[in-house]
């Protein structure tokens, strides 16, 4: 890795560039850091610097104003009724569900990074999982708001939950909309717990470094008195692994259930079996685009380039290319099935999507989601900050339009007399922008007050975390280990940093310790 290559050959590429590929050698994931101390210092500086960057104040100011606009519009909606939206018959759901599906989808990348990449032992996740998970939580908050305020009589929103009442009135559990209530609330709860559990050791770091009493008490309470006990770590790691194993099917189920909202209905353009996998791929696609959108300015502003390296960004861009291509395949397959089914209405809906009155939205979607990511086939573009920022923002726009196109396919339903051109109102537009305000407000506050990078996890993937011999854990044999220590005892503490000694152990970082957190990239 950085300072301790597995062999004596120099690392390929320029210093600070870790995007090279060399079979047999793993590029460093943490740049310019040799010691745990400097890692702690650099990450904690985000929280501990007396003043955050000026851009933080500006962004927070703008975001907070937009979040307040969101709140005011919600109040206006409650007072006036859902007629303030452009929703009409037959486009009953309109923008609120577009925004709901968009935001839920954004969340999925966070869980993918924290759970699925963890199960696959992708060490590069450690630098980005914390803020990707934060993004998940905040995106799901934005998502949950839209159906929450769309119930009409919002004071009866508790009817969504099976609460015993004097009317013996229960939710109808055969409806996908109710599955959604359970799926999204479970998803939010489990993501929150996963995020918090992962953060406890890092909150303890901030507690132990707190410069005043208020910080010490606040971080102290939330770190639960964590003291890094190995007996605690043992259960903690197992719990983390189990949470990852539980969150993986959960994240796949959530967007599948969201797609059931559409797919279970008997409507052309919606009633297709491709929806669950297509929605999940799209969610991961859009979510990763949002992670890159947030990571690029964040690493710049707070100087986190040693942790969120170009390799991390490149890896994410590769996933965007993959999932974008899957989404493109799904778009094509929808058309094929519409033709192949021979169903008149199905065919009409799809021709109408591409050539009808909202064809501009369709082709925006195709350009942003299918064409734009193709740049990422080329390493030059994958590793260029301006290009990737442009592409991922295209994807952000495109993924919103994808849901818009799906929802708007009801515009021309079975009854030509109800056909119309769907027009959003200013409240629709204000709420979409306002939800971004809420999202960024929460995210900027998180950047300032909580550990933005999983400090303890980053340390665990550093070469120094593996000591001088890679296979401590696998033998429980005292005598053997004693011998090994005895032979190294003469030069004692220098083992971890002694290249000569390392040569006998060609792969110190590669002790793929089953059930442990940071094995190998």
């Amino acid at each position: 890795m950085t300072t301790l290559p597995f062999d004596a050959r120099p690392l390929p590429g320029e210093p600070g560039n870790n995007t090279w590929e060399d079979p047999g050698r793993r590029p460093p994931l943490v740049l310019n850091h040799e010691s745990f101390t400097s890692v702690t210092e650099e990450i904690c500086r985000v929280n501990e610097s007396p003043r955050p960057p000026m851009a933080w104040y500006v962004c927070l100011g703008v975001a907070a104003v937009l979040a307040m606009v969101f709140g005011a519009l919600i109040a206006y909606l409650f007072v006036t009724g859902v007629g303030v939206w452009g929703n009409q018959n037959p486009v009953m759901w309109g923008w609120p569900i577009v925004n709901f599906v968009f935001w839920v989808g954004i969340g999925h990348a966070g869980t993918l990074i924290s759970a699925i990449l963890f199960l696959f032992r992708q060490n590069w996740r450690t630098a980005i999982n914390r803020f990707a998970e934060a993004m998940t939580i905040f995106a799901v908050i934005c998502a949950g708001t839209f159906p929450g305020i769309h119930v009409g009589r919002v004071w009866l929103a508790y009817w969504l939950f099976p609460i015993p009442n004097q009317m013996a009135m229960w939710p109808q559990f055969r409806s996908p909309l109710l599955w959604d209530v359970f799926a999204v609330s479970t998803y939010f709860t489990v993501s929150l717990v996963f995020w918090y559990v992962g953060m406890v050791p890092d909150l303890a770091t901030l507690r132990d470094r707190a410069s005043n009493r208020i910080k010490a008490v606040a971080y102290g309470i939330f770190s639960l008195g964590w003291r890094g006990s190995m007996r605690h770590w043992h259960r903690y790691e197992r719990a983390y692994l189990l949470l990852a194993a539980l969150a993986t099917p959960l994240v796949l189920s959530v967007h599948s259930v969201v797609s059931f909202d559409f797919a279970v209905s008997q409507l052309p353009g919606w009633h297709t079996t491709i929806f669950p996998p297509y929605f999940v791929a799209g969610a991961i696609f859009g979510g990763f685009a949002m992670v890159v959108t947030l990571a690029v300015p964040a690493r710049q502003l707070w100087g986190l380039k040693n942790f969120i390296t170009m390799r991390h960004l490149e890896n994410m861009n590769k996933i965007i290319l993959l999932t974008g291509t899957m989404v493109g395949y799904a778009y094509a397959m929808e058309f094929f099935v519409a033709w192949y089914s021979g169903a008149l209405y199905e065919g009409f809906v799809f021709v109408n999507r591409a050539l009808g009155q909202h064809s501009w939205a369709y082709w925006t979607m195709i350009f942003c989601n299918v064409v734009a990511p193709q740049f990422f086939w080329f390493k030059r573009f994958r590793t260029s900050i301006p290009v990737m920022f442009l592409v991922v923002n295209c994807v952000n726009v495109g993924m919103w339009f994808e849901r818009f196109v799906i929802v708007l396919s009801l515009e021309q339903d079975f009854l030509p007399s109800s056909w119309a051109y769907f027009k959003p109102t200013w409240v629709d537009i204000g709420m979409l922008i306002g939800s971004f305000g809420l999202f960024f407000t929460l995210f900027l506050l998180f950047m300032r007050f909580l550990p933005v990078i999983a400090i303890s996890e980053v340390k665990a993937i550093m070469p120094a975390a593996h000591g001088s011999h890679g296979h401590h854990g696998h033998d429980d044999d005292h005598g053997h280990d004693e011998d090994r220590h005895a032979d190294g005892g003469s030069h004692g503490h220098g083992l971890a940093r002694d290249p000569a000694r390392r040569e006998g152990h060609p792969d110190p970082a590669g002790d793929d310790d089953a059930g442990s957190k940071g094995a190998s990239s």
Partner: protein
Amino acid sequence: MTTVPQPSPTIAPGARPAPGAIPGQSEDREPTWGLMAEFDSVDDIFEAAHRTRAAGYRWWDCHTPFPVHGLDKAMGIKPTILPILAFFGGLTGCIAGFVLQWFTNATSFDVPSGIPGITVRGYEFLISGKPMLSGPAWIPVMFELTILLSALGVVGWMLLLNGLPMLYHPTLKNARFARVTNDRFFLVIEARDPKFSEERTREHMESLNPLSIERLEP
């Protein structure tokens, strides 16, 4: 002491006041809770763990800034029963999901609510001619509740078995210990260990070549 050049060994900025934990000075005031040795590398804490275990101590622990892989095995920590508890949490959620949907959507009989005179009753929904016992339609909610109770169970049991939250602990009083969440590794042997003796345990720790040895008070 170590011969390795160390990055600036400044103690973390004034987190908490250093209590008088200097050996010999405070012994007449408070009893000894345990002894703590400080290390600065993974190799050292491994060696300390191996030798402490071999010396027959039972009430001891290693404290590290991150999970050191294999150290739990070196310490002889038994595998946790968390996976089994997670399974039962999931099973509870799955059964609860089924019973909830069956009772509320497919039955109609009174169940005492616990409040005198009040009963709870389900409602037999007849939706597009589907059978009352709609297994396939109930799978999503059963699945979500399985995950939910399993996940909350895992975290709850993990904290419970770890004895967290514990906002007070003798180790947390020590100023040096603040670096356990940063870059230092600690071996702590508690006084309640049958083999503990302040002198012999201190000798044992000195033989491990630590950066420092501290006496902990309760």
